[in-house]
Every structure is written in structure tokens, then in C-alpha cells.
């Protein structure tokens, strides 16, 4: 809100809206903030007043080989899922942009369908299917399942970017001597670059956070969220808060990076006047 007076606005309404927005954010972020605060608290149980400041729980987490294994699995899966789903999503989005064909609506509906399926159902179905073809219980099964969940996000992001492109840009490249592959490399991909990196980070973040499907199909190669559940079932430990803070910061970093890319100067359609 700017400081200057605007006679067309009611100050009381303005203030009410500010209070409303602040309250909404407090409600959403309070649990995460609490987890963050208690991760530095020396007490065994989360209670007020707080005990002393302590990094004990981080130390405990950092020395736990099970946590490291989970983190390694999460990162490994996340990076590969990010790359595969972005590539798939790009292909799907470009197909939609470039070609007209019978059944295109069905194609689009199917391509965007996976995130609308309840994750429990998807996880169960993945487990049943992957175990039948002897692919369940390893990192590859988590990767396959996560690509199914993530690719539609990548497609949606890249499709939006393509829709902002001047439809004459690609034919202009052909007309200037670029073959279809050259136009793809020198025009389509550079134009979509912000969205491609954005999709990469978002899909990685989704994979990092995804629990339900991974729980069904990961077997012994548990990702971090699955490990956390394991901890919780055994005992309630403030170590959870430390892991939670770590995962939260990692995911937020990726999401913020993606946001910067997608809303930055480079993402604007440059030819508008």
C-alpha cells in the first residue's frame, strides 16, 4: 500500500484487509514456525516456556546414518525426477502448442490427470503395477512413480510459457534458414528456458516432499519423508523438527528459485507494446 492519499479507497477497509491477510499467513505458517523454533529447543517435549537454545537435535540428526541414507535417496530421486519430468512435460507442452490432431482434448486431459488422483490410490496402484513387473521396492520405482506425479506440473508451467510466445517466432526461424531441430534448439528452448528451469525446481520440490506414493513403493530405499514417518511411529523426538526445518528450507529454496525464474524480467513476452 502506498503512503499517498487515494480518495477512492476506504481506509477502514484497507486496514481490515491487512489484518485479514496477516492472520491468514499466521494461521498457515504458525505450525512450521513452531517446528522451526522447537528444533533449537533443548527440551525433550515441545512445551512453553522454552528451554535453552541447543543444536543437539541437529547433531543427533547429522550423526544418524539412517537420516543420511534417506537424504541421499531423496536427493538422488529428486534430481532424476526433476530432469525426467521436465523433459516429458516439455515434450507434452510442445506437442500441444505445435500440433492440431483428433482427440487433442483427450490427450490434454490424460496428460494433466495424475495430480487429481488421490495419492493413496495412486500409490496403491503404482505398488500393484510395479511389483507385477518386478520394479517395486527400489529407487527406480520411486522415480517412476514421482515422474508420473510431477510431469503434469512441468507440462503446465512450460505450456503457459509457450502460450505467451508470438506464434510467428518459430516460423520466422524456419524462414530464416533454421530446420525444425535448429529452431527447437535456437528459438523454442531459449524462449522457454525460464519455464524449463522453473519446472525443474518445482518438480524436484514436489518429489522431495512427496510422502504417500513413496511410502507405498520405496521398499528399503526410503526417502526422507518416509523415514520421518518411521521415526514418528517409534518415538516422538525433536529430531523430527530438525529434519522438518531442513526439508522446509530446501523445498522453499527450490520454489522461490522457480518463482524468480517464472516471474522475472526474462519471462515476460518481450514483444508487447
Amino acid at each position, binding site marked *: 500500500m502506498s503512503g499517498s492519499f487515494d480518495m477512492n479507497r476506504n481506509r477502514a477497509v484497507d486496514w481490515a484487509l491487512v489484518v485479514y491477510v496477516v492472520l491468514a499467513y499466521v494461521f498457515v505458517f504458525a505450525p512450521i514456525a513452531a517446528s522451526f523454533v522447537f528444533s533449537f529447543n533443548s527440551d525433550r517435549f515441545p512445551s512453553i516456556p522454552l528451554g535453552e537454545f541447543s543444536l543437539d537435535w541437529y547433531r543427533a540428526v547429522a550423526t544418524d546414518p539412517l537420516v543420511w541414507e534417506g537424504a541421499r535417496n531423496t536427493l538422488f530421486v529428486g534430481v532424476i525426477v526433476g530432469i525426467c519430468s521436465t523433459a516429458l512435460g516439455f515434450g507434452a507442452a510442445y506437442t500441444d502448442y505445435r500440433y492440431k490432431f483428433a482427440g487433442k482434448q483427450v490427450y490434454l486431459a490424460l496428460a494433466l490427470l495424475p495430480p487429481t488422483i488421490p495419492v493413496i490410490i495412486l500409490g496403491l496402484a503404482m505398488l500393484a503395477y510395479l511389483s507385477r513387473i518386478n520394479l517395486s521396492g527400489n529407487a527406480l520405482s520411486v522415480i517412476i512413480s514421482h515422474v508420473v506425479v510431477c510431469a503434469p506440473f512441468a507440462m503446465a508451467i512450460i505450456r503457459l510459457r509457450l502460450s505467451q510466445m508470438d506464434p510467428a517466432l518459430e516460423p520466422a526461424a524456419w*524462414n*530464416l*534458414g*533454421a*530446420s525444425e531441430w*535448429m529452431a527447437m534448439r535456437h528459438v523454442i528452448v531459449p524462449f522457454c528456458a525460464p519455464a524449463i528451469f522453473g519446472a525443474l525446481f518445482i518438480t524436484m520440490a514436489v518429489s522431495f516432499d512427496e510422502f504417500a506414493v513413496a511410502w507405498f513403493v520405496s521398499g528399503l530405499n526410503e526417502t526422507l519423508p518416509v523415514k520421518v514417518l518411521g521415526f514418528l511411529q517409534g518415538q516422538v523426538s525433536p529430531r523430527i523438527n530438525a529434519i522438518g526445518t531442513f526439508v522446509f528450507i530446501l523445498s522453499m529454496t527450490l520454489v522461490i528459485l522457480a518463482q524468480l525464474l517464472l516471474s522475472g524480467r526474462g519471462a515476460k513476452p518481450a514483444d508487447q507494446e
Partner: protein
Amino acid sequence: MSRDTLVSFEGVVKTFGGFVAVKKLDFEIKKGEFLAIMGSSGCGKTTTLRMLAGLEAPTEGVIRLSGKPINDLPTWSRDTPMVWQSLALFPFLNVRENVEFALKMRGVGKAERRRRAEQWLDRMQITEFAERNISQLSGGQRQRVALARSLVVEPEILLLDEPLSALDAALKVRMQSVLKNLQRETGITFVYVTHSQSEAFSMADRVVIMSRGVIEQIGTPQEIYRTPRTRFVADFLGSSNLFSGKVRSGTVGFELDAAVGTLRLASPATVGETATLTVLDTKTHLSTTAPAGSVNAVPVKVIGEEFVGATATVYLETAQGQEIRVQKSHDELTGLPLGIGQPLYVWWNPEDGHLVGEG
């Protein structure tokens, strides 16, 4: 086909599903000429250009470039660069990289690419913007980048698809002279698609007028302006008064039995045929009394007046309700009573009338 023909369209037809965009094109583009293709939207002019560029495939017929059929050649192997209505500059490349693009696609080395791009940046007077992003340029500067980007490969032919339509009036006139000079200096054949009569007539050596997928007339701007071949062309140009009627044999020559009265014709015509007489609004005159002698005169009432620069257009109406326009300089109109409803006579010499078919 003569030796100075660069492009020929031979029986070219283009349909999109059930829609016929181009009915049957048979015409030639000469080497080094500035050809404008003009018509209202949907007349097939842009489709014609896109077929020449290789962005649409003809449904029937052959397009030849320097005598060779190019129907099956993809656009990237044609050397028919196009300046787009949206300009379609690459927003993620700077000005220099945009200009170098076509050379890069042809595998020209870095140093050579830079040298040739430099020449065109200089020629289009955009060297100082070479490292800028496209979004930092004004409309006129973008036009120049688009021209440099297309011309850097030094093609034999340049296609332009209404490239000036986004500019304001003053800049448009300036770019017209830039284009005309460029064409004259380089000798490159320009094919310029537009819906604007002023753009086409001020730049082109020859103008093609299209309507509903067919060519209505091809000729120099003067030919088309003075002697429109069809009623459509005369109507489209909007600078003539039209009178329709049956031709008959009169006492001294041929006459047209029009709604406004009997009009003398200066040239022979087929008796009994329905025809349209066109008279340029600059060739019509006004008087307060019925003019004597062998001129055509029609009694009218003044219904309005319009000023554009040094000329004025007087709008008049006949007793039958037909509108007639007379264009004069302000000086020529002084002394004439021009109040609304004022009865006057419009007259012209039969030699200034021109008969066209109904087509």
C-alpha cells in the same frame, strides 16, 4: 516466361478444408520490382505471400522461383526471407544476435557473421543499439532490426507482410521512404502485402489487387487509379464516382442510361450491355447553373463537406439518392455556395469517364 521474371504463380489454388483462400493465381513477379499485393482482409493476399515463403503448400498449381518449381522446398531452404506483421524478433537475443541469426543457421563462421551483420546494422543505422535487447527498442528501431535480420543473407527477394501496420502515421510515412530507397539501392525484389492503398500506391512499381481469392487487376498505381478494370477495383479504391446502367446508341455516340439520367460516353461500348461508368472525384466539377455544351451534368444537393490538408471533398446527393463526391482545392471552391441543401450541378467531360465491366 520472360527473362526478367523472378517468380511465377501458375494456376495456384489454396484451400483450407472447405474454405477457398486462393482460387486461381496466374501472375509473375519481375526481377527487381517493388510489387504490392493489396486487398481487404480475407482476400488471400497473406496466403499468397505465405505460399511464396514456403509456410503454406499450394493445393494445386506450381510456384517457380528463377524458373525452378519450389512447391516441395521447405521454407528453410528457400531464401525467401519475410518481414512479419508482428516482426517476430527473437526476444531472448540482442539486436546483433537477431541480425546474425540467419547466417548462424547457414553455418557462416563467427567472424564473417559479425562482419556481415555489422554492414547491415550500419546500413539500417542501428549500430548503436547492437547490444540492446529488443524490448528496449522503439517501434521504428524494431522495424530496422527486422529488415536487417531478413536482408543479411542478401536474398533475391524479400517478402513483407504488413510490417508498418503497428506504427503511427508519421513514422509510417518515414518507413515507407526507407523501404522504397532500400529497394531501389539493393535491387532486391520486394513483395509487399498490405490493405492500405496509400502504402501500396506510394511505394510499389506494380500493384496487384485481390478480392476473394482472385486477382482483380495488376498494373502500375497510375494505371489502376486512372483506369480501374472492374467495378470492384473502382469501388475499392474509393476515389471514383460510379454510375451503372445500360449502354445504348445515342445521337452523337454511345450513351449510358443511368439512374441519374443519360450520360455521354467518350469511347465505343457494346450496345445493350450493362456497364459502370467511373469518374474520378478529382475530375468532377461544380457549378451553380446547368453547364452548356457536350458535358455530362447531374443536378444535386450539397449534403456535406470534408477537409484533408489542402483539399476539400464536397459530398452531394442526386434526386435519386445517389451520393457523388467532388474533390477540389480550397481555392477552386471559393465563391461557390456550399451550405447544406444548396442545389448545384455536378459536371464532367465525357473523356474523363471510364467504362468498366460489372465483374
